[in-house]
């Protein structure tokens, strides 16, 4: 019995000894590997960003950081925004900071100031190349300088040269925008993050390479993408937002869609600010508000006189149809094509939202409708080869197909759009393409051309998903697709927003809209033709005339009834910013002609003229500010991209993982074999002793 006890004891000892050694060895292995990683970036501390810099000991230097303050002043339906970016250089040498940041897609950027200590230098508008030369020259001479360039209509870069060690330079940018007004609600959006954009290689459309060749804005220009910070570094680029609304009439409910805010009302003004005054720039800010009941405008006109020109901004809200009227609007059966983006950038929360939106869309189909569903990432996959009647059975099968969708791969939109916009028409059906995506693409222009060329009688409705969709792409795609853009930033909004979209697209509320200007006044308006209006949408037109404008009459067809409204300019004839908004609309319209095949050599001078006259940043003009006195050494300037935060919920992207567990497996395996040998030997010896 003694022998049995001894033997069992030994076995237990051997067992635990083996496990102990195994654990110890594994720990040693893991620690060793952890050490070898930490040694390469051992300067990294929580919250510090590093840039590679061979001149510094250890190879890394801290990157500049940017704190952003946003102040938005809303007057009537125009918002004037001041963005202050404070570039701080935590390092020990002079650096150049390059910050890629988004702005609303219709922002008319017209002012730039650079503040160094107490001195303030105002930026000037120049043609893009000239501005860049001015900036480079100042940089070479050791002068502080700032350059604001447009990468995309909603994506800008700000380069600041010679930020001294432990120094801060304050850059102030101002822009103007007209507010979106829909369904009785004003909406103001300030984008705070950029979803990394996917640029397909070469032409994405193999069979029509000539017509659809991707056209960069300039020869040899490339899309600058923000550099993203590694996770787990805490708040990186902080942002503070304050908004003041002076609507002229009492304001009703104010809602911040995705951020916690404090709302105060005082003396006819409504002030909104973020509760935590430092928020990380990783999801877009959206504020919506309604006007007090009875105060909602049916029509509004703002004018501004600048030089010989009179500028006007018109907004007309067609009256909502009553239930009886809506019953009379004949509902045509629809052929609905649902396209969903399942690329890698959609992974995570975005995919959940997209699926919810798809299910909602399937719910709204009626038996008389037809439908199909398709997904795209690097390639494209359809649910069925052609659209089928929306029977309960078919909808159920589509629902199951949707549930199995997974995100991954690139964002190659062209094949899906080509499939959906194939020029076919089913007689008696209203063809609607609903396109659900985060719009994370860099080849926008190529896609716009495709939409323009192939739309036919279909209508394209874009639905933006995720915490930072590419608003420029979505809005323009919907405009070229003669549909509308809906943005969903939260799963909770899916039901409401998709419901509103489908209610809206049942039938246009106002068709054939015409504007009659006072006799004999030549007027240039944007958009040149007012599109059909769906439920809750206003007419929004910017106009320029050589003579003062009198009363304007807007007419249209409501159902089958003629409808009209007359607008008279307010006696106080100077609403600031109307001219800039008109110019911005004109530039956008000129840029749109590129998608329709216009020659860039003719468009460019036209854009430059308008932009220089109105002091606006555009694809071909930039703002540049240069300090007069050199304050920095002229050599050894490092350039660093300021890291942006990735949009909240974004998990895709990044460089591929290229390590295998082979070494780990080999070590574990050899170790297990050795343990086996040791245990066997111990077992033998025990047996012998016993």
């Amino acid at each position, binding site marked *: *019995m003694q*022998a049995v006890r001894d033997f069992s004891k030994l*076995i237990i000892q*051997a*067992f635990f000894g*083996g496990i102990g050694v195994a654990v110890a060895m594994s720990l040693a*292995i893991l620690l*060793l*590997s*952890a050490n*070898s*990683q930490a040694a*390469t970036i051992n300067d990294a501390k929580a919250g510090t960003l590093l840039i*590679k810099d061979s001149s510094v000991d250890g190879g890394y230097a801290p990157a500049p950081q940017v704190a952003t303050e946003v102040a938005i002043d809303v007057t009537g339906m125009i918002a004037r925004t001041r963005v202050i970016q404070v570039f701080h250089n935590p390092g020990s040498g002079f650096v150049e900071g390059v910050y890629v940041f988004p702005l609303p897609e219709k922002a008319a950027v017209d002012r730039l100031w650079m503040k160094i200590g107490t001195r303030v230098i105002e930026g000037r508008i120049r043609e893009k190349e000239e501005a860049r030369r001015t900036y480079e020259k100042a940089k070479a001479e050791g002068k502080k300088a700032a350059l604001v360039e447009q990468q995309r209509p909603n994506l800008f870069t700000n380069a600041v040269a010679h930020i001294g060690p432990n120094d801060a330079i304050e850059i102030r940018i101002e822009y103007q925008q007209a507010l979106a007004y829909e369904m009785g609600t004003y909406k103001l959006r300030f984008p705070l993050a950029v979803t*990394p954009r*996917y640029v397909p*290689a*070469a032409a994405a459309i193999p069979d029509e390479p000539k017509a659809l060749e991707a056209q960069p804005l300039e020869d*040899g220009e*490339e899309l600058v*993408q923000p*550099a*993203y*910070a*590694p996770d787990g570094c805490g708040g990186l680029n902080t942002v503070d937002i304050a908004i003041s609304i002076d609507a002229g009439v009492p304001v009703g409910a104010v809602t911040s869609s995705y951020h916690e805010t404090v709302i105060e009302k005082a003396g006819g003004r409504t002030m909104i600010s973020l509760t935590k005054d430092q928020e990380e720039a990783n999801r877009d800010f959206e504020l919506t508000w309604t006007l007090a009941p009875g105060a909602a405008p049916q029509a509004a006109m703002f004018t501004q006189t600048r030089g010989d020109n009179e500028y006007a901004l018109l907004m007309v809200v067609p009256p909502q149809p009553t239930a009886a009227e809506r019953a009379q609007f004949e509902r045509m059966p629809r052929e609905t094509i649902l396209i969903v983006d399942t690329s890698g950038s959609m992974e995570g929360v975005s995919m959940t939202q997209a699926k919810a939106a798809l299910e909602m869309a399937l719910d709204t189909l009626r038996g008389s409708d037809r439908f199909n569903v398709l997904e795209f990432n*690097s390639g494209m996959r359809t649910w069925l080869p052609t659209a089928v009647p929306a029977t309960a059975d078919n909808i159920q099968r589509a629902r199951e197909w949707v549930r199995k969708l997974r995100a991954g791969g*690139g964002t190659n939109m062209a094949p899906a759009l080509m499939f959906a916009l194939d020029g076919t028409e089913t007689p008696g059906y209203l063809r609607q393409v609903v396109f659900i995506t985060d719009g994370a693409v860099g080849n926008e222009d190529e896609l716009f051309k495709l939409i323009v060329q192939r739309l036919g009688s279909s209508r394209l409705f874009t639905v933006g998903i995720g915490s930072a969709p590419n608003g420029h792409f979505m809005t323009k795609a919907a405009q070229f697709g003669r549909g509308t853009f809906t943005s969903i930033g939260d799963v909770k909004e899916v039901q409401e927003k998709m419901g509103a979209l489908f209610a809206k697209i049942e039938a246009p509320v106002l068709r054939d809209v015409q504007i009659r200007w006072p006799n004999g006044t030549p007027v240039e308006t944007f958009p040149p033709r007012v599109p059909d209006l769906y439920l809750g949408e206003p007419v929004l037109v910017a106009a320029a005339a050589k003579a003062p404008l009198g009363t304007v009459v807007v007419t249209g067809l409501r159902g089958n009834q003629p409808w009209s409204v007359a607008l008279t300019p307010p006696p106080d004839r100077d609403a600031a910013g109307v001219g800039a908004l008109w110019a911005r609309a004109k530039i956008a319209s000129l840029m749109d002609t590129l998608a329709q095949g216009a020659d860039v050599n003719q468009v460019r001078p036209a854009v430059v003229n308008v932009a220089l006259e109105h002091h606006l940043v555009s694809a071909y003009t930039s703002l540049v500010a240069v300090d007069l006195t050199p304050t920095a050494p002229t050599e050894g300037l490092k350039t660093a*991209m300021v890291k942006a935060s*990735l949009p909240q919920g974004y998990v895709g*992207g*990044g*460089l*591929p*993982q*290229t*390590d*295998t*567990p*082979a*070494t*780990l497996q*080999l*070590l*574990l*395996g*050899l*170790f*297990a*074999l050795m343990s*086996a*040998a040791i*245990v*066997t030997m*111990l*077992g*033998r010896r*025990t*047996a*012998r002793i*016993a």
Partner: protein
Amino acid sequence: MRAMGTDPGSRAWGLSPVLIFALLLALLGTWQVASAGWIHAKATLAQHLIASAWSGARAGGPARRPWPWADMRPVARLTVPGRGISLYVLDNADPRALAFGPAHVGGTAAPGSAGNAVIVAHRDTHFAFLRDLSPDDEIDVEGAHGAMSRYRVREVSVVDKEETRVLEPADAPLLTLITCYPFDAVRPGTRLRYVVVADRIG
């Protein structure tokens, strides 16, 4: 029990817990070593199979699948003169393809063409040699139709995996080779990437 003491031979403690434990350990060990070996075997064997698919493509035919159920094709051949490195580059950089060879990252320029061509591979198999590359080393790339390009290494750097700007398009013909870093890490899943950038010189 006494019998076991007097007879240290095999049968008496034949199925004792010690032996079972040792056997389990041995099995586990063999399985782990085999898995590691399988990763390396796949990496080597696949390159040989791809070689014959490649010579088919060179002869003018369409690039064949290296084996019937493969979902990738060779698009280029990468050689480093003087180092005995010769690798076939596959067309689709997904984790499965990477087991068989270096792969071209979709969306970047084609190897040998103008623009930034990005190729990724595993640090412990195909691209283990990257650690030996230094500026001014030369790399040859043969395109699908036999077009040869020569690149010279400009810089070598270590970046975080979120630094996707190394994938960004360029005007000049560039070759960017990426693998995981550090090379001799035991545990997979590092955040760091080793990036070699080379300019075309001919």
